[in-house]
């Protein structure tokens, strides 16, 4: 009872902190990977506290799979966008924004987001995978 209540209250804060870490990635300590892991733990916490069934209802395996692919796709997509706008792969400064600095900033941010999505999805997939009973 108590645990469930505290968990309910804690999860938003954990997720907020995760987003902060992601957003802060290009200048300070942090980044998509760490942020993603923190975001993933919040969901893992939910699963541990409320059980597998509820967890699966919250994030069905199909969606986690999809998100896992999507994140990498964002990463690769940004890279290719750079090529499309005439740079090398992942050369953010060539992205069509006002100045190269902003472009690099946004480019890195997009990539970090992609990484974060993938990482958190994969963390959840790990839990589902390891906890499954039969060879599904």
């Amino acid at each position, binding site marked *: 009872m108590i645990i469930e209540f505290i968990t309910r209250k804690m999860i938003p804060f954990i997720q907020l902190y995760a987003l902060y870490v992601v957003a802060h990635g290009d200048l300070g*300590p942090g980044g998509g990977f760490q942020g993603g892991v923190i975001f993933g733990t919040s969901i893992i916490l939910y699963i541990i506290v409320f059980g597998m069934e509820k967890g699966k209802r919250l994030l069905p395996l199909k969606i986690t799979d999809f998100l896992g692919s999507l994140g990498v796709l964002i990463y690769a997509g940004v890279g290719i966008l750079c090529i499309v706008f005439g740079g090398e792969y992942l050369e953010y400064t060539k992205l069509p924004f006002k100045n190269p600095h902003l472009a690099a900033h946004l480019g890195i941010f997009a990539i970090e987001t992609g990484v974060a999505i993938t990482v958190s999805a994969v963390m959840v997939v790990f839990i589902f*995978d*390891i906890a*499954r009973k*039969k060879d599904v």
Partner: protein
Amino acid sequence: MSDFILSKFNYWASILLMMIGMYGMIAKKNLIKKIIGMNIFQVSVFLFYISMGKVKGGTAPIFWEKAVIYDNPIPHVLILTAIVVSISTTAVALSIIIRIYNCFRTVEENKILETLANDENQSGNNQ
């Protein structure tokens, strides 16, 4: 002599960890314990990398007005990647172990090998 040992303590630490990990990977018969050994083994290398990047008197490689010398950030970045790899390896290993458990109902290596040997004998007899 003691000076020599103490001045390189980070190496000694990672060598010790590495040996523990190696021992676990090779000597343990339990598949999960092997994985634990593998993790220790990998972590020893990560520690080795990180200690390598330390510069005397340097601070964390984050922009800070008071800092004069920064640590070398490249090993840290590299090790971040290596950690990801290590996590994935562990995850793959664990999921393989789960499947092994579903198939054999045990995670002890010698019992599994026994079962496999029985398998082969049976298929041999059938022919």
